[in-house]
């Protein structure tokens, strides 16, 4: 329950630390998607717990000792915010100085994310994709059950007429805003990861208010699965194309005549891939959990 507040708090912390992009992601993930997933899992596992804690005294002692050691460790760290800490003296300086001229987009986070460290990001996207595959393997065994009786699928929000009407108004705006975040990521805070999560959040809102069956009829899980794979493929494909133009893998400088324009195109393309994968992944995860919950409720 308080996890939501926690997400909000940490996001405001990130804002004060200048990490606009990170705050963006944390805002969407920490405050929105994570509590929702937690709650859906809780509907399955039940709210009640035994409160027998195992040896809290020993655990507390252990935690205290570890914490004290770590604090001792921080005494050697450079002071907070000092500009000549080791973290700022290696590649970061180059990113800050060169990226505006080399890549031509103002948001350095995006340029580092999608160009200098494109390999890392490719890895992360593949991890997300793999996690989704794992969730689907674990949770969709009861799919036939839930398809057999869509009539009494979750309709608990039927009484909230005002909520439904207003949400109907808001959802298109949210989708539009997600697209804005997606394609504005090179000029302001934003990008594929954030846009994907916002997009997914809008669809999840729809699924919550109008029932899972309706949402699945609007956006089919089979198509989502294809899309999730397609996003990764698009990312990798851009790499292969840059390969074919004679540059290194994921080096976009030859995608257009002007290297700066080429890089810009490459970044937009892979951000699109990231966005598609993340959105599809989040919606699929939610479908899997919600479908499992309703399927189980009917089986009982």
């Amino acid at each position, binding site marked *: 329950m308080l996890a939501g507040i926690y997400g909000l708090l940490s996001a405001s912390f990130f804002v004060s630390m200048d990490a606009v992009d990170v705050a963006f992601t944390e805002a969407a993930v920490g405050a929105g998607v994570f509590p929702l997933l937690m709650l859906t899992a809780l509907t399955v596992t039940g709210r009640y717990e035994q409160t027998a804690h195992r040896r809290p005294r020993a655990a507390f002692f252990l935690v205290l000792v570890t914490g004290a050691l770590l604090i001792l460790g921080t005494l050697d760290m450079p002071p907070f*915010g000092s500009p000549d800490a080791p973290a700022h003296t290696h590649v970061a300086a180059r990113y800050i100085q060169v990226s505006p001229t080399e890549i031509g987009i103002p948001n350095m986070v995006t340029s580092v994310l999608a160009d200098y460290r494109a390999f890392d990001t490719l890895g992360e996207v593949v991890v997300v994709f793999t996690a989704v595959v794992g969730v689907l393997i674990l949770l969709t065994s009861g799919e036939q059950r839930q398809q057999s009786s869509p009539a009494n699928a979750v309709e608990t929000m039927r009484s909230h007429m005002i909520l439904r009407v207003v949400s109907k108004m808001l959802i298109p705006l949210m989708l539009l805003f997600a697209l804005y975040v997606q394609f504005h990521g090179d000029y302001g805070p934003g990008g594929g990861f954030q846009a994907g999560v916002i997009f997914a959040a809008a669809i999840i809102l729809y699924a919550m208010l109008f029932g899972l069956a309706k949402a699945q009829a609007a956006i089919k899980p089979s198509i989502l699965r294809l899309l999730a794979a397609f996003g990764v493929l698009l990312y990798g494909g851009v790499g292969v194309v840059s390969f074919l133009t004679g540059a290194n893998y994921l080096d976009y400088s030859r995608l257009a005549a002007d290297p700066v324009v080429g890089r810009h195109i490459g970044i937009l393309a892979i951000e699109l891939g990231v966005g598609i994968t993340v959105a599809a992944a989040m919606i699929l995860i939610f479908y899997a959990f919600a479908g499992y919950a309703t399927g189980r409720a009917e089986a009982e």
Partner: protein
Amino acid sequence: MLPELYNYWVVIVLMMIGFYIVIVQGNLIKKLIGLNIFQTSVFIFYISVGKVAGGSAPILAEGVSVYSNPLPHVLILTAIVVGIATMALALALVVRIKNAYGTVEEEELQERDLRC
């Protein structure tokens, strides 16, 4: 010297809270929440490291010459999304455990395992 490090200490306190929850709670879901707190403390730590005093957000703007370090931002940005995906995987595992054993309490799980 001391006030310059308070940020790291907050991180450590958070981290230890998460650690404590992971150790003490028997409920697997609560363990996951503790893990999430731990994870977030690491995020905060990275972002604190990336902060430069007097710096501004790493988006090019006129009249700003000092920017914070964009590299930790990138790492954490992806880490958050990957974190939610892996957390979903963990929750899926918990759900399946509930399905197979009928409980998510660690001690009951161990009892059942021993009986088998």
